[in-house]
């Protein structure tokens, strides 16, 4: 078998496999009597690697074999493939934030008491990551729960010079009077299942991005099973 054909087969298999292939996997692509030697395969792999010079991907040897991977320096562009449109925060998240803003310093227990349901750790985590809340102390009760307050970043985001500028609920009523339609689309979540929906929203937030490629890879070969 000439080297070009061998290189093409290796390239094709590595690109189709969507997983690393080692030398023995590559050997299995051939009929027994037509199998190139291991040295030939190694030589072909080396040439395949060289051929990637200057391209958007490279041949890498990882523990389970060889694979093509997209060059890391392209990540700022390529990763935008998975960038999602920001989702709306759940009702649970907004209520928690509102309570922290208007009732700070406040513990998670206080929030749960007012909301009547538990507050997921993910909500607190997300608000922390967004740097909208911080821990300003701990209440001196068993468990020493954290006391949450809002941050300067929170004020900046909402264009407030201080918490004093937070509108009152009275002002909210005025807003509703002015534009009743506006409030409608915020009220979207159905009353009955609000809590579940809110929790469910948060579950989605927890999805690990790194799981996505696996799902995509499964799409490669949708046809391997069930004869129709």
């Amino acid at each position: 078998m000439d080297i070009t054909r061998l290189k093409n087969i290796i390239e094709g298999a590595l690109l189709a496999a969507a997983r690393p292939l080692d030398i023995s996997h590559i050997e299995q692509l051939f009929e027994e009597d037509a199998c190139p030697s291991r040295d030939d395969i190694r030589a072909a792999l080396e040439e395949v690697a060289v051929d990637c010079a200057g391209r958007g991907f490279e041949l890498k040897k990882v523990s389970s074999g060889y694979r093509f991977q997209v060059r890391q320096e392209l990540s700022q562009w390529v990763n935008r493939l998975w960038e999602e449109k920001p989702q709306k925060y759940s009702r649970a998240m907004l209520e928690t934030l509102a309570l922290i803003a208007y009732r700070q310093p406040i513990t998670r227990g206080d929030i749960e008491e007012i909301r009547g349901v538990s507050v997921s750790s993910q909500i607190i985590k997300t608000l922390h990551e967004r740097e909208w809340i911080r821990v300003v102390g701990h209440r001196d009760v068993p468990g020493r729960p954290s006391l949450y307050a809002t941050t300067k970043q929170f004020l900046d985001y909402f264009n407030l010079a201080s918490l004093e500028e937070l509108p009152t609920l009275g002002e909210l009523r005025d807003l509703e009077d002015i534009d009743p339609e506006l409030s409608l689309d915020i009220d979207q979540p159905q009353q009955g299942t609000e809590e579940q929906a809110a929790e469910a929203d948060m579950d989605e937030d927890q999805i690990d991005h790194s799981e996505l490629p696996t799902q995509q890879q499964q799409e490669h070969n949708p046809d391997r099973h069930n004869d129709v």
Partner: protein
Amino acid sequence: MTDTPVIDNESHPQPPSQEEMPFAMIYGEAVTELPKDLYIPPEALEVILEAFEGPLDLLLYLIKRQNIDILEINVAEITRQYMAYIELMEAMHFELAAEYLLMAAMLAEIKSRMLLPRQEEIEDEDDPRAELIRRLQEYERFKQAAEDIDDLPRVGRDTFIASAKEPDRNCERPHPDVSMQELLLALSEVMHRAEMFESHQVQRELLSTRERMTEVLERLKGQQFVPFVSLFTAHEGKVGVVTTFLAVMELIKESLVEIVQSEMFGPIHVKARSA
């Protein structure tokens, strides 16, 4: 996918021979011998039946086997062969789809119309075969189209989508936007639920006290004792001093800070209870 059933090789070269076809069921007799041009190993019959996609497919097969054009089919001959198949299948107790019987009736009708004395003025479009031929052609072109589609290079069989490991993820998810109104609505909602909703509960004064409470806690964070007086800033004026005082009172009430005075009229120190 083969479109020609297995019997093709065996039967193709032989011209149909009417005399040798005393097919038993037609004459109400038990089957003793299968017709020559129709010989099928009985175990293969089921396979064959499955190989046909219905009566049109079976008819097409019969026509092709005779090497004639669809437009020139001899209805009598095709009907005879078709009926032979149907009878055979019935004799073998295969359950026939209703469509096969319907086609048998249609063929019989065409055959009888063909037998009617031909009138001089008869038009071509009155050819009793016209509808059958149209359907056969129509079916045949889609049968061919299905084979053509099957021959198209297909993902997972002839070609494979190329993929490579993506670069490490270092992108952060964009944050959702939140409007002040959403926040207020959420607050009003939760207050409603808590049955604590009264507009005057959340007011300017209270908020400034709350904010000051946070500030005081911040000041106390990590400190042992902070002089009480150092919490006040004179230039804030009376309102500021009162706010701070209220904030400290509120913090005491909520057991968040403690006040320590080591001696009468000595300096008062404030300490976060959790510090």
